[in-house]
């Protein structure tokens, strides 16, 4: 395996990590805000706050890690994506900023502030949309090179059905992933009411998720035939992913093995995410940029890989400690030990 592939694999894995933890986070914010206005706040808020409080900052770092990593391994992406993404990414930063700070304001400042939790919930729902624009752009067809600089065609982007399919998919995925996770978490906390409510949400979002996911494949066929052909070659990954999806829904429906259900869900998204990523190979921005012409020099690549391994040596035990203390600690999850 060469360094280019290794680099993009590492980054793609981190992006996948971000997609899962951020989805739980974004969805939780939305469900939290929704519960305020549906009068169900007493059921959900405790569970959600208890999960989110110790991890919200960590979630954010996954994203920072990805974008710093991609500029490190593939410096040319800074030129291409940096130039064209000024507006969409600035909007995403804005939403992230509002979300992160309002979360802290609500949790540590004024608990139960309706305005703060509304801002927090809504911004979380727009975020997947604004971030998923990058995926759409990477499919090509929206960027032209004028005087040596890439220029984004906003009209083509916003009038493309592909854009909107990906946006809808990202939102349904966020709500589905989050609902499944919180069902499991609430069940661990022996909170029957919250479990039932989250289970209902999980089932509600399962169908739209799978419809939009299939829709994307159809869209791609028209938009980028080369990518579509690659996708079809990997059909077994997507078929397997679909089976795992059925398994998750089955467990949730039967009200058992919520932990396993979330495990299957992770597998489902991992297969789909990596299947998509592999079929995108070798392009970072179709057809202008491949992972080969944008790769950094060898010395830097080697030092980045060494730094990465050393960093993981620190991170994995610490993350394990974090999970042990909060996610998998019975006293904490059931609210027996009172923080603060």
């Amino acid at each position, binding site marked *: 395996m060469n360094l280019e592939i290794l680099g993009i694999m590492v980054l793609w894995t981190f992006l996948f990590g971000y997609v899962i933890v951020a989805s739980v986070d974004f969805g939780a914010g939305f469900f939290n805000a929704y519960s305020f206005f549906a009068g169900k706040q007493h059921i959900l808020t405790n569970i959600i706050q208890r999960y989110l*409080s110790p991890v919200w*900052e960590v979630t954010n770092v996954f994203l920072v890690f990805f*974008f*710093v990593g991609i*500029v490190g391994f593939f410096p040319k992406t800074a*030129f291409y994506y940096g*130039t064209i993404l000024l507006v969409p990414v*600035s909007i995403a*930063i804005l939403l992230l*900023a509002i979300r992160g700070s309002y979360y802290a304001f609500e949790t540590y400042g004024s608990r139960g502030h309706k305005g703060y939790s509304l801002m927090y919930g809504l911004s979380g729902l727009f975020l997947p949309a604004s971030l998923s624009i990058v995926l759409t752009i990477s499919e090509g067809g929206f960027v032209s090179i004028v005087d040596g600089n890439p220029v984004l065609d906003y009209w083509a982007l916003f009038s493309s059905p592909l854009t909107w399919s990906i946006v809808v998919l990202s939102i349904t995925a966020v709500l589905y992933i989050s609902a499944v996770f919180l069902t499991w978490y609430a069940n661990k906390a022996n909170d029957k009411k919250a479990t039932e409510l989250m289970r209902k949400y999980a089932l509600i979002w399962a169908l739209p998720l799978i419809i939009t996911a299939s829709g994307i494949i159809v869209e791609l066929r028209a938009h980028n035939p080369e990518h579509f052909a690659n996708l079809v070659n990997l059909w077994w990954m997507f078929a397997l992913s679909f089976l795992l999806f059925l398994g998750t829904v089955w467990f949730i429906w039967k009200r058992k093995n919520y932990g396993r259900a979330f495990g299957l869900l992770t597998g489902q998204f991992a297969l789909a995410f990596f299947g998509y990523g592999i079929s995108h190979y070798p392009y970072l921005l179709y057809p202008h940029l491949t992972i080969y012409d944008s790769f950094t020099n060898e010395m830097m690549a080697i030092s980045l890989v060494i730094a990465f391994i050393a960093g993981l040596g620190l991170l994995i035990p610490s993350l394990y400690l974090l999970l042990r203390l909060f996610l998998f600690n019975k006293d904490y999850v059931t609210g027996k030990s009172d923080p603060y």
Partner: protein
Amino acid sequence: MFNGDSLFYSRLLTELTLSFHIIYATIGVGVPLMIMIAQWVGIRKNDEHYILLARRWARGFVITVAVGVVTGTAIGLQLSLLWPNFMELAGNVIALPLFMETFAFFFEAIFLGIYLYTWDRFKDQRKHLMLLIPVAIGAAFSAVFITIVNAFMNAPQGFDIVNGELVNINPLIAMFNPAMPTKVAHVVASAFMTSAFVLASIAGFRLLKGSNHIYHKKALYLTMKIGLIFSIATAIIGDFSGKYLAEYQPEKLAAAEWHFETEEAAPLILYGTLNDGEVKYAIKIPYALSILAHNLPKSEVIGLDQFPEDEIPPLYIHYLFDIMVTIGMWMTFLSFIYWLGAKWGRAFVNTKWFRWLIVLGGPLSIIAIEMGWWMAEVGRQPWVLRGIMRTSDAATSSGQVDIMLILFAGLYAILAVGSVVVLSRMFKSNPVERELEERNAEKGGVVQ
């Protein structure tokens, strides 16, 4: 390719984001150390007040961390959004410390989360103290790594340019550039100093506003003492920075000192105004610039006459330099007087006017931080990578930077107001007297 408007607005937006971010970032680097010291003192002296001090600082700290994290994410992305050409070039050489910074940040985030939610989970407070060590180390090291990136922009090395291509790249040589030691040390020391004075100013304010609790007095004495130590360290490192500039970036030093002609036994110009190349109302200290630059009163200091006109930084950085140094000196003096006065039991340190000076110290230190960064950054103009890439060649070609500037200005205004409102409400609604009483009740009456 050149787009003057984009360049102007990109510079403005970067300056705005960084100026806002460093307020929270400085607190983010310094306060964990203060919390750690308070916790440690509390355990060693078996004094509940210090433990509570650590606890209350930590609670406020979370709010500043949140704003620091989100604005840090903003500047991290803006580097690529506003300066794509720069990042493309620099990414090849300097990506390593950027990458390492995210690890330090990751590390800090994990342990801060654990620390905040385990207050009463350990019987032994020393175990809890252990959790603060990675937080403080992570915070300090993210400052170290990110400052290394900035030092590289001032003294780029670790590569060769052959026919416009970068070759022979060595990331470690790029990291350990000549600007790195002084820059990193100055940033870290001044962050500790500023955080100490900010916390001192809060304690001073509570004492002024009625509460005469021993808790605030202990807080004030502790923070002023730490502040004194780090302000002395900052001044010494500042002197080394001057020597670094004389050696490697003489145009920055010359612009900051209004040193127009290369000469021996150069005087240091303090304050004053500049009209058509004439310096007026300035205080001239003979030989001082030569001493600052080379430690020898008669040594030669390079002046602005040695540089082509389009490579000279703006001369207004002299004012920034003066303000920074004046505040630094003043805070060293003030904390020294306080420390002596408190040690000898003199009454003047408890008077109203002296406490007002202490309250003023926090905001002043933050102003000094801003001035120092503006001077360092503007003093490197017109280069983004000194001697390699001009700022005008690095900016984005996108035409929407002006709208983004307005958008972000609005965001920072909201975040500033939000964080101040939340912080003041948090502590007003839960004064230390009440919290002590509650803890007292829990522990069965040990705490006063």
